[in-house]
């Protein structure tokens, strides 16, 4: 991760948000980052309020539980702690921008957004004609992140990754990015991945690094591993209403904690036990025997 990088994260929408990586980026005091994602939930708000962000390319920036993201609002409305540039999208247009890059294309056409202001004088979206004579469309230009940070359930050491539950734009971003970092609940033997090749949404040769970080997405959920912890989203929403409140949250939950293990300890065993999924609801048997 370098200052000025364009980073895609939070791609599965409300689940699998790599908060451990988000907090580490804040601790490392990265600067001038561009954030890319559909609806980023409070991860983007935290990075913006911490002053690491110069630009946001997203469809929705806030706190899904609470609504407004106060860090985002302060940066956008008052330039505090710094001014940010916002490239507004809808979920579909940011998805098409990533998909275009994933397909090795300069753009993809769409009808979405016509008649609205998002696509008006947009740096990445232009009106085009249908070469077959149909009604006019919009061209959504390719968006290639420098880095995509993906949280999955399991991956092998080569980065071949099994992801289930919400997918959102995870696959598109992993294909599109110059570097893809896979964070997983478990690094597993390659035999586990090979047992179900249709579950491998990200082939290992696209992956730059594999990191085993159980609970690295908390307080967001990971299907089959962690429930969503609702309370931190609400309490962050309340406390981040003022810069002072955010600063105290930042100290308590990021700066004063060296890593995710410390975060989990600070969260407390009772909470993590409540959130950890222990019961099993397994996918039906699927036979790959040749």
């Amino acid at each position: 991760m370098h200052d000025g990088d364009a980073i895609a994260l939070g791609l599965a929408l409300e689940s699998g948000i790599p908060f451990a990586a988000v907090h580490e980026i804040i601790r490392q005091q990265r600067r001038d980052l561009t954030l890319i994602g559909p609806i980023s939930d409070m991860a983007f708000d935290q990075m913006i309020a911490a002053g690491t962000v110069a630009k946001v390319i997203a469809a929705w920036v806030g706190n899904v539980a609470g609504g407004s993201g106060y860090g985002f609002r302060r940066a956008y409305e008052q330039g505090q702690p710094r001014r940010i540039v916002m490239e507004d999208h809808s979920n579909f247009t940011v998805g098409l921008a990533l998909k275009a890059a994933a397909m090795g294309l300069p753009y993809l056409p769409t009808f979405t957004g016509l008649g609205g202001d998002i696509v008006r004088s947009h740096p990445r979206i232009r009106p085009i004609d249908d070469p077959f004579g149909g009604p006019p469309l919009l061209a959504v230009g390719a968006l290639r992140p420098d880095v995509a940070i993906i949280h999955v359930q399991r991956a092998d050491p080569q980065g071949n990754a099994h992801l289930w539950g919400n997918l959102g734009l995870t696959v598109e971003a992993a294909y599109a990015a110059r570097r893809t970092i896979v964070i997983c609940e478990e690094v597993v033997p390659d035999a586990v991945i090979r047992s179900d090749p249709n579950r491998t949404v990200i082939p290992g040769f696209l992956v730059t690094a594999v990191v085993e970080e159980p609970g690295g997405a908390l307080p967001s959920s990971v299907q089959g591993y962690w429930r969503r912890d609702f309370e931190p989203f609400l309490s962050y929403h309340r406390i981040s209403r003022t810069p002072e409140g955010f600063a105290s949250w930042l100290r308590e939950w990021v700066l004063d904690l060296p890593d995710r293990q410390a975060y989990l300890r600070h969260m407390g065993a009772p909470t993590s036990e409540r959130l950890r999924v222990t019961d099993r609801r397994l996918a039906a048997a699927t036979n790959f025997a040749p």
Partner: protein
Amino acid sequence: MTATYNRRELMVVAAAREIHDDEVVFVGMRLPLLGFGLAKATHAPNAVGLFENGVIRDQPAETFIYTMGDPPNIAGAVACLGLLDVMSLLQQGRVDVGFIGGAEIDPLGNLNTTRTSGSGWMIRLPGSGGAGDIASLAGRTVLIMEHEPRRFRERVDYVTSPGHFPGRRRGGPATLITTLGVFDLSGGRVRAASLHPGIRAQQVREATGFPIDIDDEVAATTPPSAEELAYIRHADPQGFWTGDAVKAG
């Protein structure tokens, strides 16, 4: 005789009535999610629900969900695809009706959830999410709003979710459900279809920042039945979305 109910519960019932059987519905969270479940449980057992994160459900989640990505919304889904898969189906015209909300609305059904200076200073809102796509591409849209003068504006500062406009290929706002009534937007203007019990036309006019058609004989919104209320209170036991404290949309 009907049980007592609050306006949120009435809005959920009104939302449910906008869903016909066998329809494919682009479901939002909050009131529309409850409305979808209520419709499934009553008059629309074969309706199918799509969520912008890629989830497709033909029955509501077994337990309460705070976001569409919560694990209970995945478990038991008939399909969990990618965002672009469901958006492709939406763009293809396979979705009959979609629900969206907004901070501001104008007479053409344009919704603003991006930024507003209505209050004198600029306020940044979260943005479109999938709402702009649903507004653009669904077969028809149902809008859910708080009915307040500052939200009902002659012209919104920013059109996040396009309403009626010349050259629209498909769909557009059909119905607006507010805290005061149910309104028909299909004609490109706002006409009261029903006012919630106890709401007077004058009250609605005062709460609407632009001219609005209210017939003198305008009907009253049919209150929730005991069965409908029972479903809503089972689905939202804490009144998380339907308690009197919370905001609509």
